[in-house]
């Protein structure tokens, strides 16, 4: 039974890269294109880990994380923030919103999978 990872990113390139890296690592991957779509996809699915971008149209990563944490069903799901922003301010905002950890783009596959493994039971 493989674990499911939900990735939320507005870039098709990034979605494809995540999908490739994660499915090759044996994860079941579901994807969304922005925060609002992410919350929609979340309903009716039960990802073991969520990976989200920050800069997205309609609803950014901060809003998405807050939305997930507000939902009792999903508040214990680990959320990793995937972003090119390496500055402390973005990280602390993401943390304040409820993020579990972060991965800095560009990522390599081993590190990505390792990050998931660290937070996934």
């Amino acid at each position, binding site marked *: 039974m493989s674990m499911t990872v939900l990735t939320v990113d507005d*870039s098709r390139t990034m979605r494809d890269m995540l999908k490739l890296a994660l499915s090759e690592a*044996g994860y079941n991957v579901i994807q969304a294109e922005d925060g609002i779509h992410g919350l929609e996809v979340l309903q009716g699915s039960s990802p073991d880990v969520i990976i989200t971008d920050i800069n997205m149209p309609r609803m950014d990563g901060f809003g998405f994380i807050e939305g997930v944490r507000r939902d009792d069903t999903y508040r214990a*799901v680990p959320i990793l923030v995937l972003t090119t922003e390496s500055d402390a301010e973005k990280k602390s905002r993401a943390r304040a919103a409820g993020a*579990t950890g972060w991965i*800095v*783009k*560009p990522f390599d596959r081993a590190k990505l999978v390792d990050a998931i493994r660290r937070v996934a039971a």
Partner: protein
Amino acid sequence: MDPMEAIKQTFFQECEEQLAELEQGLLAIEGGETDSETVNAVFRAVHSIKGGAGAFGLEDLVRFAHVFETTLDHVRAGRLAPEADLLKVMLRAADVLADLVRAARDGGVVDEARCEVLRAELGAFSGEDETGDGDDGMGELDFQPLSFEPISFEPMAFEPTAIEADPFEPIGSELAFAPELAAADGRTTWIIHFRPHASLYAHANESALLLRELGRMGEVETTLDDSTLPPLADMEPEGAYLAWTVRLTTERDLDAIRGAFEWVEDDCDLKIEREGGAAEVASVQGPDPIELILAKALASAPAPTMEAPPPIPQIAEPAPLDVAALIRKAQAAEEPVLAPANAVPAPAAAHPATANAANATATTATIRVDLDRVDRLIDLVGELVINQAMLAQRVTESGLGRSSGVVTGLDELEHLTREIQDSVMAIRAQPVKSVFQRMPRLAREVAAMTGKSVRLVTEGEGCEVDKTVIERLSDPLTHMIRNAIDHGLERPDKRIAAGKSGEGVVRLSAAHRSGRIVIEVSDDGAGINRPRVKDIAIEKGLIAPDAVLSDEEIDNLIFLPGFSTASEVSDISGRGVGMDVVKRSIQALGGRISVASRPGLGSTFTLSLPLTLAVLDGMVVSAGSQTLVVPLTAIIETLQPKAAEVHPIGEGAHVISIRGGYVPLIDVGLALGYSDEAVEPAKGVALLIEGEGGARAALMVGAIQGQRQVVIKSLEANYRQVFGIAAATILGDGRVALILDIDALVAGQKGLESPAPVLRTAAIG
């Protein structure tokens, strides 16, 4: 294809979209839409290009995008006003970014000096020196496509409290310089004190998993401290009352150990010390007051592990060794495949539902499908349409009454079939936006080269048309826009002298009109210079010097092959392409082009194109024993010729006189070998058609059976290429009908055609 290579292609496609968005956004901002939505979209476009470029190690692109992004970030944050000067620079920067993307995609280089200049200009706006190599840390980071950011200390995050609360030397990066007191086997034993706060759990981190990470690094002995555990009834269920001390023997260094706690630094008390040496301590303290108590306790007891007995004495043998063994086992099982399947499985019941529900939701927005599959579907629907038509014909033949249930049912089926066909065609349809959005840049460049001032206005970008039509529309449109600016618009001084605004307007619009798409390119320039056009045509021998032509006829001269002249060719419009080529490519798409011009007011070129290349409006005719389809777009008019109008000109060839002009008369049955005898003019029908380059001819056929929409089936794909035949279709009665290749037919007779008569007949059209 290598999956990464495929993703790279996706990246470049996405770049194109983002570049378009960037340009549109910048133009919108220039037009006064400075709302945060627009600004953010522009920022995101550049940000996204940079992100992907970083992943593929495209350094030039990253470097330029980074500078651009920095400037945009200032605009986004309101530190820079999006004024005209800045927007001009950013629009040019967008062009450079586009060139960099294409250079990365297709190979080739972008003029480094040009990049440099724009980087400097952007940097000047954002107040940062971006020209040198002194890129900031973030830029550097992005240049590491395969490596990962080393887990770094962020001393800011914890040092202040550490200094205050901890009597030990606060440590930060300087710890790296401390000499390693490594054991003989290269392994060091560390003592890790870890007390999670409630916030650690609230962020969905988990002590058990953090401890598991330590276990992966080496041998661990884990001691649980539950001394602050409250009675069950007083317990805050989501509080945090436990602490752990882990004795870890590992070859990994302090950074690696800290790395395991990277995400929880603010959510726990953490102290890492080398066993036996209290001086080297890494400590992280969150804001929790308990941390202070702990720190003090640790200060008075420098080696707590030695003093701290297991809190509950009945532990005969400590669990630690088991843990280490267990973890090794887990690692062994897990690492080869990197498969999370071996980790603690998630609730079994949740999963099947997960997959299905997720698939269902994830696909709501858009899906990407192989074009082959869509084309296969279109093919099948084509078959369905044909099949339905055949069925209808059989039913009619069987003599069932019009009001019978079968016939009514068939009518409904036909309706449904058409609807399916339209829907399937719509899958291939795309908005013309993808072509239109390349034009603003072109307009800017042509304007810059010609010294003219242009405003390009686009309308109807949402109009959809078949993907292939869109792809083949780009070149003709490019040429037409160039032409409009280069030849259509006057220089600013002339415009002003003529009482117009110095800035010329070129309008590009698309609209759906009766099942076709109509695209117009118009300018508010001087209009076609008719005396000049006529002179050129005479000079080129395209018309007789004494030809009397209407204004419309003169305007249409520009579409003649050979009209485009050296004296008329400038740097921009030249390139050996004349309007005849434009016309030909439009006709190849089953389209038509026309021009209307008013002196002093400008010209309008109008393209009318079919929405799809999969169906065709045709006239069904018979020639000899064959049923043929003539594309309706090629037919100018149908004629009932009189014997007297047909004149033999030797070699079995004929011309027909039409209102004073002569055009070649082609007997289709003879030309294609379907009959041995020519149709008697009075008994047949002539179709006046226009082929490539405006060449006209009359096609002699036996009879006209009617007009209908037919589904095009490739003859080459199913049989082989046949002279004079473009494709085939299947009619309602099940017969295969061939679709005529007008251009080939006309070309086969070309020697007979002379320019002047052709022009005369133009008056008829």
